[in-house]
């Protein structure tokens, strides 16, 4: 660093200043008066003129070099030398006017020259000082610059590091199997990882800058506004969405969104991580389908087993009856009929006939569940119970269901479960009847109304389909047990339904519609 150099030290030392003053005067005096002077300037007048000039010069030199003090001393000494050696009378000091004038001129000149020198000296000093200050400043400035330069280097290095970290992280994102992309609030894709390239079939270059929902033909499970609302509220959203690949195949993805709020110099962005669950989804659908199939099969199997067991129960006594009756005929054909044996066989026929009847009674009791609690119910409520159970079946067959329950339908006193079974039976039958129809005809309507019949108010429900209808079959015939049009059907549904309604004091009947299909009517007496 540049030290603060003192100005005084830059001037000639004190001995030099005073020495020059004394020496210069002595030399000038010697040259004027001594033998040297006589040799240089042989003529006295010339010698004196040059002597005075020399002395004068010595005074000025002293003032120049030594400043005002030495200049004044040299001036006085020079004046004394001139008075002593040059001005007559020689070799005496006459303190007259000439002397005073001479001293004054010499002194004035010395002071003038000394002060000029001093001034110059000071200016030089000032100059030196300011140059020095300038240097200091330049140094400081240079140091500053170096500092900021280093800082800049540091920043650049840090930035490089950050960039390489970012690159590494982006490379890591490319390693994941998940498809990851980032888009702004308008859906413009800002980042697209390798997983996304593989999943969707667009390269990074193709994807960047395009609008995600349009490119992927996104189908959202709920309106996008709801998703965005949740995203802005919680910063996250998760759900299943459907996208379309580059090759046009649709895929279902489990999607997770993270929201980065906008900040100064930073736009809002949404990070979307998607997992392909198409296969899982398909497997789930297949499983669901298989389960439904299984349920259906097991229901049919159960009914089949029930039918087999009923058949066995009935066929046993029938076989005995036929065998006994045949035996009787054989005996009666003989010449000598064993009457006792015929009687025994006929008694067995009677008992087996009764046994067969008992079996039927038992089955009916079992199916009819006669001992049940009956409660006051609204027909509309029972219909509402049933709809969630049958709606999947109806929508699976693309059937449109219309329900109209009048406000004045009277309450009924029923076993709610049994009436539900009747409704389910009628609705499922109707769905089956319309399975092979064109879609626009698959309409099913349930209407409940109050009707005043002979003995009071009734709740009447009409279940109307637009199916194949009854054809040539008498409407009453469909209520007979084991009447069925369905392959694998048992033909018990309508028969049991009717016995349920009848046991409630009501009526169940069918009418053919004028255009298509059948309407089933359930009439139940109002509970008093």
């Amino acid at each position: 660093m540049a030290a603060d150099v003192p100005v005084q030290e830059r001037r000639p030392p004190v001995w030099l200043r005073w020495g020059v003053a004394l020496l210069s005067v002595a030399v000038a005096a010697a040259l004027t008066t001594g033998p040297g002077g006589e040799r240089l300037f042989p003529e006295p007048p010339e010698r004196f003129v040059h002597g005075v000039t020399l002395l004068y010069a010595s005074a000025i030199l002293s003032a120049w070099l030594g400043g005002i003090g030495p200049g004044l001393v040299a001036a006085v000494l020079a004046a004394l030398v001139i008075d002593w050696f040059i001005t007559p009378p020689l070799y005496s000091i006459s303190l007259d006017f000439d002397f005073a004038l001479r001293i004054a001129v010499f002194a004035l000149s010395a002071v003038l020259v000394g002060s000029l020198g001093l001034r110059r000296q000071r200016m030089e000093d000032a100059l030196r000082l300011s140059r020095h200050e300038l240097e200091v400043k330049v140094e400081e400035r240079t140091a500053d610059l170096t500092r900021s330069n280093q800082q800049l280097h540091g920043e650049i290095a840090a930035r490089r590091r950050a960039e390489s970290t970012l690159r590494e992280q982006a490379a890591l994102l490319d390693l994941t199997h998940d498809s990851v992309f980032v888009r702004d609030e308008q859906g413009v894709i800002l980042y697209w990882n390798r997983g996304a390239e593989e999943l969707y079939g667009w390269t990074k270059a193709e994807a960047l800058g395009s609008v995600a929902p349009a490119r992927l033909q996104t189908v959202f499970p709920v309106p996008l506004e709801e998703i965005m609302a949740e995203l802005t509220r919680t910063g996250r959203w998760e759900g299943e969405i459907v996208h379309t690949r580059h090759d046009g195949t649709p895929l279902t993805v489990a999607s997770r969104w993270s929201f980065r709020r906008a900040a100064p110099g930073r736009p809002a962005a949404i990070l979307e991580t998607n997992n392909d669950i198409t296969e899982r989804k398909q497997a789930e659908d297949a499983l669901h389908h298989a389960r439904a199939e299984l349920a259906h099969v097991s229901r049919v199997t159960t009914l089949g087993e029930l039918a087999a067991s009923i058949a066995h129960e009935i066929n046993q006594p029938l076989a005995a009856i036929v065998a006994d009756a045949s035996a009787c005929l054989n005996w009666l054909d003989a010449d000598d009929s064993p009457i006792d044996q015929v009687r025994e066989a006929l008694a067995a026929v009677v008992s087996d006939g009764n046994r067969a009847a008992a079996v039927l009674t038992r089955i009916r009791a079992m199916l009819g569940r006669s001992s049940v609690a009956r409660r006051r119910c609204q027909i509309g409520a029972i219909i509402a119970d049933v709809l969630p159970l049958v709606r999947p079946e109806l929508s699976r067959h693309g059937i449109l269901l219309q329900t109209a329950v009048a406000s004045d339908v009277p309450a009924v006193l029923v076993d709610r479960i049994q009436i539900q079974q009747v409704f389910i039976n009628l609705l499922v039958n109707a769905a089956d009847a319309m399975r092979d129809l064109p879609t626009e005809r698959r309409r099913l309507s349930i209407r409940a109304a109050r009707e005043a019949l002979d003995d009071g108010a009734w709740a009447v429900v009409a279940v109307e389909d637009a199916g194949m209808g009854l054809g040539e079959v008498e409407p009453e015939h469909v209520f007979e047990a084991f009447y069925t049009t369905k392959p694998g059907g048992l033909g018990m549904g309508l028969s049991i339904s009717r016995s349920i309604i009848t046991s409630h004091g009501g009526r169940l009947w069918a009418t053919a519609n004028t255009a298509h299909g059948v309407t089933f009517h359930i009439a139940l007496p109002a509970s008093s």
Partner: protein
Amino acid sequence: MESTEPIIFVVDDDQSVRDSLRRLLRSVGLAVQAFPSAQAFLSSPRADSPGCLVLDVRLPGPSGLDLQRELLIADRPLPIVFLTGHGDIPTSVKAMKAGAVEFLTKPFREQDLLDAIRQAIERDRADRRERQELADLRRRYDSLTPRERDVMGGVVAGRLNKQIAAEFGTSQATVKEQRGQVMLKMQADSLAELVRIATRLHVPTRGSGSA
């Protein structure tokens, strides 16, 4: 033909069916023994007379099909007429494949049952005759000396007396005499009959095709 009366065995767990079957079969003059289960039938002694089994498929304990299998394994063959409460095609196919005579669904027509029973008895008679004849032939064969059996094997293989004599190192006259013994003991009138008997008994033939 057969002097002994055929017996019809009825196995059905339903008593009224069992009783009615007994009455029906008796009414046409058939002898009947009825059992409520497969075990009861198997544990009862059986008379040595032709007969058949009228068997319900569905039985408590071993089923009708189990009993059918058991009889086959135990080598106590008896033609079977199956009865079932309801037609079940896989079961009937299984039963028929295992040799059942008929598979009737309850309630059955009397004539169908009697026809099936008659057919079954005929089959049992034929089987029994066959078994009897085989036993007779076996007894005759067992009465041959070892050398006679060897000679019989050579004869039914179509070899000449000379060849047989050469093989055993005896004279043709000896072979001729032994051959006469074989024909006598086996009660065969001709070589053709002897060959037929040998085939039924699976008699080993000797040296066929080589000299």
